[in-house]
């Protein structure tokens, strides 16, 4: 299908994006006050995700601390113009939170400890996300498109920190099926987002997102 290869339309840069980039540039320059500002802006987002994944307030705070320090140390590696700082930060938080739950449940070989987010999440096109600023209704709409088994596979991975092998074992499903549930589920969500992206929803989302 053609719309699986067409990139999502680039989001119009919002004032928030520009402000975030300016803050990140100051962080790269070693300005503590800028880190303070970034933290105030995104602490709730970061902590909510970390808490959802770890289900442990103290571990979630460790994850958030780790993530903001990662951002503090690696702000210079953020690629200017390639997407929102928010999504970059989100990928760091998610990565650290998954690490943390796997450490707590040490049956999975741990990834090498890194200060830098995974290379693939720094690939240029990752940043063309209309999804970042969607409102609650759009989020529900995109999630509603998943079948039960797709949702299960995606949630066990993204929020549960399980590997594909662990998901296959837990759901008693062949590994290949687990992989295609993840893939087809993500692609289905993407198609919904592409449709949403065509209307004025993105404009409304910008207002909702402004702090």
């Amino acid at each position, binding site marked *: 299908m053609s719309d*699986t290869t067409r*990139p999502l339309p680039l989001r119009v840069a919002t004032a928030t994006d520009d402000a975030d980039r300016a803050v990140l540039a100051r962080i790269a320059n*070693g300005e*503590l006050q800028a*880190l*303070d500002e970034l*933290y105030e802006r995104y*602490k*709730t*987002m970061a902590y*909510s995700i970390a*808490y*959802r994944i770890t289900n442990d307030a103290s571990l*979630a*705070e460790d994850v*958030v601390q780790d993530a903001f*320090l990662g951002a*503090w140390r*690696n702000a*210079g*590696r953020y690629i200017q113009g390639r997407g929102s700082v928010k*999504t970059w930060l*989100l990928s760091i938080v*998610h990565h650290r939170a*998954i690490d943390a739950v796997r450490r707590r449940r040490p049956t999975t*070989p741990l*990834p*090498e400890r890194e*200060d830098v987010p*995974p*290379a*693939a*999440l720094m*690939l*240029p*096109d*990752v940043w*063309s*996300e*209309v*999804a*970042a600023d*969607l409102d*609650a209704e*759009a*989020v529900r709409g*995109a*999630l509603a498109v998943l079948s039960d088994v797709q949702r299960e596979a*995606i949630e066990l*991975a*993204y*929020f549960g920190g399980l*590997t594909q092998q662990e*998901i296959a074992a837990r759901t008693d499903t062949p590994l290949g099926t687990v*992989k295609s549930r*993840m*893939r087809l589920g*993500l*692609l289905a969500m993407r198609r919904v*987002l592409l449709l949403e992206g065509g209307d004025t929803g993105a404009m409304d989302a910008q207002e909702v997102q402004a702090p």
Partner: protein
Amino acid sequence: MTDPRPPVDLTCDEVRELAAPFVLGALDGDEAAAVRTHLASCDDAHVELSELAEVLPVLAASVPVAEPSVALKSRIMAAAAADLASRSDSSATPAPTAFPTADERGARSARSRAAAGSWAVRIAAVIAIAILGGWNLLLQAQLRDEQAYDQQVAAVLAVAGQPGSLTVVMAPGAATARGLAAIDPHGRMTLAMRDLPPPTGGSVYEAWAVAPGAAPVPLGELAVAGNGAAFMQGSGVPPSPGLVVALTREPHSGATTPTLPIISSGTATASG
């Protein structure tokens, strides 16, 4: 799981097959490393990865909202301040680059060895506490129990160690609170306090700079953690010896004149 698997060279098709579990974080360490290794050298842009990853913010946006404790910010800021101080101690920090290269990947282990240097800062901090005075052995022992406060003090002492900076030992006033501040030559102050009673009824702790013969200047509020520790940074502090740093409890945020009594205060002296 005890035998480390040898590095695997993946084909483009294998990477495509692993794309969904990769972006969802569902590969184990070896598999994820193999995908990253492939991506670092592959001519194909592997847009399928970014297409799938574009959906992730929706998953993130679906979680229930939760708020971190107030103390977390102090911990993060203190750790960043300590990191900044250790950076200026070491010339080995690599210049930031847009993309991690294979060389940098190799340098990563070297960098984690360099991170051990931050421990040197913290040890130096404990030693410096003894030299600066106003701190007893009991207090040093308690520091071990409170990592956050430890880092906060390390951050203050890192500033105090800079040439031309001033140190302020914050002695107890109306409360048993005590602490330590340092002011760098650019007028930036870093302050760590402990034993502050929790503020009540919307009141806040505010730090003030009082230059001889001048009106008190508000420096900012302190966020107090559950254990009574607090940390703040302010700028625009005149870096002159004899300056008094004072802490008051204000009924509301944004006070322009201090409300007595003084909770804790100290006089800036050259760190020398």
